[in-house]
C-alpha cells in the first residue's frame, strides 16, 4: 500500500513537472514578458535591469527551476492585465469554481448513476428508452446553449432564479461560500444544472454500458443459477463490479467539471477561475493562463490519487497480498 502510494506520488510529481514545463514555456516564450510589464516610456536600460532582476538571462533550467519552486509556493507572478499577483486573483475565485463544481459533481453522481443502473436493468422499458433518447439530446446540446435557454426560461420569463453571479456570499476566512445564503443557493441552481447535464449523461451512459457488460458475465449467470434474487444479483454483485471501472472515468469526468466550468462561468458570469481564464485567453494574459493550467493539473493529480486509492479499496485483486 505504501509503495503503491509512493509510486503514484512519483508519477504525480512527474505529471506536475511536465505541466509546469509547458506552463513555463508559455510564460517565457509567448510574447516578451518584459514588454508586458513595463510602459512605453521605460528606457532600454531599465528594461535590461528588469530582465536581469527577473532572472530572464539565466540558463533555461535555472529559470524553470525557479518557476517551478515559485509555482509550488503558489507564486505565479503578476497578471499583465490586472497588475495583481496571479495567486491572489485565483484565490479570490477558487471557492466559486470549487463550489460550483462540487454541486455539479454531486448532481452528476446522484442522478447519473441511478439512471444508468435503471436503463441498464430496464433496457426494454419505455421510460428507459425515453431516458436514453433524452441523454443523447443532452450530449448533443452544447453547454452554452443549455445555459442560455435556462436563463431565458427560469430567469427572464419566470423570474424564479437569478441569472448571473453567486448572489450573496459569506466569507469564511479566504473561502467565500454561497451555501449559507438563500440568494447564494438560488444562484447555484442554474449554473450547476448547466454544468452537470453533460457529465450526467456521460456518467449515465457509462454506467449503463458497464452494467450491461457485467450483467453478461459468467459470475452473474452463476449467481442467477444459484437462485439469488434479482435485487442481490443487480445491486450486490453487478453494481459493485460496475463501479470498479466507473470509478476511474468518473474521477476524470469530475475533474473535467472544473475545467468545463469555463463555459458555464462565462454564460452565467460566475466569478470563478474559468471566467478569469477565458478572459486571460482573449487578453493573452500568460501568467494567468500558466497558473490556471498548473492548478487544473494539480486538481487532476489529486483526484487521480483519490481515485487510485478508492480503486485499491474496492478491488481486492489490486491488493498485493494475493496468494494461490
Amino acid at each position, binding site marked *: 500500500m505504501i509503495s503503491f502510494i509512493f509510486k503514484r506520488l512519483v508519477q504525480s510529481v512527474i505529471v506536475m513537472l*511536465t505541466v509546469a514545463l509547458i506552463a513555463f514555456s508559455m510564460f517565457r516564450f509567448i510574447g516578451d514578458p518584459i514588454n508586458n510589464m513595463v510602459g512605453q516610456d521605460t528606457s532600454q536600460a531599465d528594461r535590461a535591469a528588469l530582465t536581469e532582476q527577473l532572472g530572464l538571462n539565466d540558463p533555461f533550467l535555472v529559470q524553470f527551476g525557479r518557476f517551478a519552486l515559485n509555482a509550488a509556493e503558489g507564486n505565479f507572478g503578476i497578471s499583465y492585465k490586472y497588475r495583481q499577483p496571479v495567486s491572489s486573483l485565483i484565490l479570490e475565485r477558487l471557492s466559486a469554481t470549487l463550489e460550483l463544481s462540487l454541486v455539479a459533481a454531486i448532481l452528476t453522481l446522484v442522478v447519473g448513476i441511478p439512471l444508468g443502473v435503471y436503463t441498464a436493468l430496464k433496457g426494454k422499458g419505455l421510460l428507459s428508452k425515453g431516458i436514453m433518447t433524452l441523454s443523447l*439530446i443532452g450530449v448533443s446540446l*452544447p453547454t452554452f*446553449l443549455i445555459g442560455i435557454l435556462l436563463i431565458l426560461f427560469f430567469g427572464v420569463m419566470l423570474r424564479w432564479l437569478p441569472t448571473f453571479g453567486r448572489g450573496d456570499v459569506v466569507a469564511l476566512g479566504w473561502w467565500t461560500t454561497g451555501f449559507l445564503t438563500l440568494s447564494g443557493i438560488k444562484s447555484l441552481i442554474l449554473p450547476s444544472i448547466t454544468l452537470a447535464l453533460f457529465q450526467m449523461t456521460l456518467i449515465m451512459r457509462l454506467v449503463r454500458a458497464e452494467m450491461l457488460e457485467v450483467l453478461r458475465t459468467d459470475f452473474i449467470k452463476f449467481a442467477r443459477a444459484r437462485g439469488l434474487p434479482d435485487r442481490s444479483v443487480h445491486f450486490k454483485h453487478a453494481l459493485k463490479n460496475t463501479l470498479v471501472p466507473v470509478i476511474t472515468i468518473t474521477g476524470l469526468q469530475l475533474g473535467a467539471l472544473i475545467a468545463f466550468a469555463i463555459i458555464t462561468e462565462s454564460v452565467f458570469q460566475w466569478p470563478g477561475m474559468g471566467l478569469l481564464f477565458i478572459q486571460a*485567453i482573449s487578453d*493573452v494574459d500568460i501568467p494567468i493562463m500558466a497558473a490556471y493550467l498548473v492548478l487544473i493539473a494539480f486538481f487532476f493529480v489529486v483526484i487521480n490519487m483519490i481515485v487510485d486509492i478508492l480503486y485499491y479499496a474496492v478491488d481486492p485483486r489490486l491488493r498485493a497480498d494475493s496468494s494461490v
Partner: protein
Amino acid sequence: MEQVTPATKTRLQRFFGSDVWYSFMRSPVAIISAIVTIGMILAAIFAPWIAPNNPFDLASISIMDGNLPPAWESAGDSRFLLGTDDQGRGVLSTILYGARISLIVGFFSVIFSMVVGIALGLISGYAGGRTDALIMRIADIQLSFPAILIALLVDGVARGVLPSELHTDISIYVLIFAIGISGWVQYARTVRGSTLVEKNKEYVQAARVIGIRPLTILRRHILPNVMGPVMVIATIHLAIAIITEATLSFLGVGVPPTTPSLGTLIRIGNEYLFSGDWWITIFPGITLVVLVLAVNLLGDWMRDALNPKLR
C-alpha cells in the same frame, strides 16, 4: 441470369449482405440520422450552389436588408426564408455556410486526431516497452485535461505567438489544430488496446513467421482490424468536435464573425435573443443541435452494431 455465388461477391455486395447493413435497415433511428447527417453534409458542401445568397460576398449583401424576420412573418422578405441578421445576411444562407465551416473544422480536426492517434497507438501497442510507456504517459497527462481546455490553450498560445493580423486568416487552421490535437488520445488508447490484442493473435504471428516487416504488418494486418472501433470513436468525436468548435466560437476564440460558423452565429444571435429577433439565434441553434444529434445517434447505433455483444 446466372446466380451470383457467394464466392464472387464484391465488397459492396458483401457490405449490403452484412449484419451491419441489416441492422442499419432495421433501425429507423439510424436511417433517419444517416439521412439527416448526409443531407446536412451535402447541403454544406453545395452551399455555394444552393444558398439563396452568399453571405461572405460583402459586395452583395446590403445592410438595408438587416434584421428581417422569417419570410412567413408579415415583415418578412421572400428572398430571405429564415430572415436576416443585422448585417443583412440571409440566415438560411449563413446557416448553410456556417454548417460548412463547422463541418470542415469538425471533419479535419477528426482526421487530424485520427491520423496522429492511430499512428501513435499502433506504434505504442506494437513496439511496447519504453516507447509505449512514454507515449501512454503523455496520453495520460493530456487526458487529465478536457479537450475544450486544451483547445482553448492551444488557441490562446496561437494568439500569443502569431501576429494578430493573421488571426482572421488562419483562425480556422488554428481551430482544426487545437481541436485535433486535443482528441488524439482517445484514438491512440483504443488503437493501442486493439493492437495489443491483435498483435498477439495468431495471424499476426503467422505474418511474423513468414518474415513480414513490422511496418507492413501494422499497415496490412493490424490497421484494418482496428479500424472498427476507430470509426465509432471518429463518429462520436465528430459530434464532439462540432460542439467544441461551436463552444470556442461562442466564447469568442473561434472563427471570426465575417466567416461565421454555427457557433459564431449563435453567439451573434444570442445578443438579439431579448430584442425579439429570435430567428438569428434559434435557427442556427436548431441546426447545430440537429446535426450533432444525428451524428451522435449514428455513432450510438454504430457502436451497438459493431459491438454485437452489447445488444
